[in-house]
């Protein structure tokens, strides 16, 4: 990569950091984070309001591996707790953390804007209107069961981004600034709609607030089976554009000259980032800060090369979310704190600390 830092700053001053020369270090970091992810997952599966011995936990998981037979010395309910409640919850938390972090990094890169987060162009607000409407009206629960709210949220999310996209599209071109402005404006409008809906939500107000703050408490294999493939496909698409994201930091014209089909790239990246955000938000509600803090933290530590930034963000996002979820369900067990409150409480101060520590890299 022949991109030089001063050019980078000149054309895309909003996104800090330059390219790190030592790519080896970042490969080791990825391996280390993979190990950390595994540790965090095992830790998360062994912790809960009900005490299950560590050996039993491991045995239950191993017994599920094909061709391995362990005669169970545990109860059906213990197996359900480990395999059907904690495991899908940990997987969902990891995948959602990954989705939000990758989407955040993508939007920041695409918009050349450090304030961009996965919710910038109306995904969360659209999802919120959909979900809250569904919750208040109580429609579809008979047929869709626990999928009713996610479906409403998903339709709302894509509806909102669709409107923003139409508004920002001029001829064949999509202007990033217009997109952000339209997204912010529509987002504010939809937030007002949600505020109104909350006042008429009556006895559903708790469900509404809980959804708005985000939680993994409803995680099940059914939701994992939907969210995981969407997030993985979306993330792969985004990773394929990592080099283009590096080039667009020079400015759209420069990237075009260097052979990037900028309009095509915008469509692909917007669709993929919106898709994975919408999938995450629909099933677990609005979890803030992860999408903005994780990519920046990764940038501050390992540099802004998107070929590393994206996978590192995915890993850090997954680890961070799994840890936040452990805190959310164990701090005041058997009650649960909304995980969005944890990510904000822990994430924001940690980010400010990094910001102070690495001031010189930013400005």
């Amino acid at each position, binding site marked *: 990569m022949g991109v030089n830092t001063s050019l980078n700053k000149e054309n895309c001053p909003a996104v800090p950091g330059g390219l790190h020369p030592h790519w080896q270090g970042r490969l080791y970091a990825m391996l280390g984070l993979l190990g950390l992810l595994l540790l965090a997952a095992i830790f998360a599966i062994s912790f*809960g309001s*009900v005490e299950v011995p560590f050996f039993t936990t491991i045995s239950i998981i191993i017994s599920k591996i094909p061709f391995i037979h362990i005669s169970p010395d545990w109860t059906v*309910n213990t197996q359900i707790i480990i395999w059907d409640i904690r495991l899908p919850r940990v997987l969902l938390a990891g995948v959602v953390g990954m989705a939000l972090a990758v989407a955040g990094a993508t939007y920041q890169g695409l918009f050349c804007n450090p304030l961009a987060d996965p919710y910038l162009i109306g995904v969360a607000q659209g999802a919120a209107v959909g979900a809250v409407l569904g919750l208040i*009206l109580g429609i579809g629960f008979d047929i869709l*069961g626990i999928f009713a709210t996610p479906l409403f949220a998903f339709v709302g999310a894509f509806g909102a981004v669709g409107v923003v996209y139409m508004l920002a599209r001029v001829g064949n071109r999509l202007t990033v600034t217009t997109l952000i402005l339209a997204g912010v404006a529509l987002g504010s409008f939809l937030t007002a709609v949600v505020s109104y809906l909350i006042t008429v939500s*009556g006895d559903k107000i708790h469900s509404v607030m809980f959804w708005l703050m985000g939680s993994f408490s409803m995680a099940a294999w059914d939701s994992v089976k939907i969210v995981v493939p969407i997030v993985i496909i979306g993330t792969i698409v985004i990773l394929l554009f990592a080099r283009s994201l590096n080039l667009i930091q020079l400015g759209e014209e420069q990237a075009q000259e260097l052979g990037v089909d900028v309009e095509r790239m915008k469509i692909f990246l917007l669709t993929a980032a919106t898709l994975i955000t919408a999938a995450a938000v629909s099933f677990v509600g609005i979890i803030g800060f992860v999408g903005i803090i994780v990519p920046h933290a990764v940038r501050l530590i390992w540099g802004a090369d998107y070929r590393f930034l994206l996978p590192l963000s995915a890993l850090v996002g997954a680890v961070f979310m799994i840890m936040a979820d452990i805190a959310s369900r164990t701090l005041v067990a058997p*009650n649960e704190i909304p995980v969005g409150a944890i990510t904000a409480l822990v994430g924001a101060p940690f980010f400010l600390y990094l910001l102070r520590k690495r001031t010189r890299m930013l400005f």
Partner: protein
Amino acid sequence: MLSDIKMKLNSKSARLGTAVASIFLSLVLLLGLAGGCKTADDTENEDDTPVVTEVSYPLTVTDQLGRTVTIQSEPQTIVSLSPSNTETIYAMGLEDKLVGVTTYCNYPEAAADKPKVGGFSTVDVEAVTAIGPDIILASNLHESTVIPQLKQLGLTVIAISPDNLEEVISSIELIGKCLNQVEKANSLVDGMQTRIDAVTAKVKNLSDSQKPRVLYIIWYEPLMSVGSTAFITDLITAAGGVSITADSVEAYPTISLETVLGANPQVIVVGTGMGSGADAPLIFMQDEPRLAAIDARINGNIYSINTDLIGRTGPRIVDALEQLAQMLHPEIFGAFSG
């Protein structure tokens, strides 16, 4: 239990009576002292009927939020700001004095025809002021916003906020006293107490192993139950059960499926209301595959109860108690028929 409360109330009113009386007439002072004397030998008073049934105004009472309120004269017009207060007024036969209710007041059916002064938490203060009732029966929901507003407008507000069965009884007695309808309140309360005693007498000698582990479900997305300070927890205890979330410090804790599996409840009671989607929590508890192996599911002990019944701390709370008792102890009270 009841006589305890009555004694507390009577001795309190006796003290207040003395204070008021010392400013006014010595005759009233004597009356107040007479009341005090009666409380002293209340234990001998077998039929449990308070002697003083006439209230003198101005009357100073302490409401259930601990506020001290003085009522200048016998109230002729009442506005109720909660469905349970409305039900209490009807049960005492005082509906002619009721001039304003909330949009949620749907019981008895005639209550729906009364003028509306807003929703439960969203009170239309202007509408209340326009009516200008002699007394307003509010709830703890109105503590921080509505009550100070109404008070500033010179209106008399009594907060009714019972936290358990005993306080439901004392709340009705308080309403009776404020309205100078002590006899009507007493006969309502006596009827309720008899039915409460009929339930508690049969469950009080049960051993711990005979008391089923109960999970009460308010909502399923997320799972919400009742904690230590919740009214329903007290009701479950009175009906001879043990709520698996009774230790929770929050009144309405959010719990995880894991907690449910860990506690393995023997009976699940789901609150269901009106409107679309109201049955969703019940359907979830009956169908969720991960709950299939808990005792309540295996034995088919999943019931629904009308939230208007169990959620309103008025006279019909006794109906809820009797229904709960049937759900928890069909061997004593007969099977619950819905």
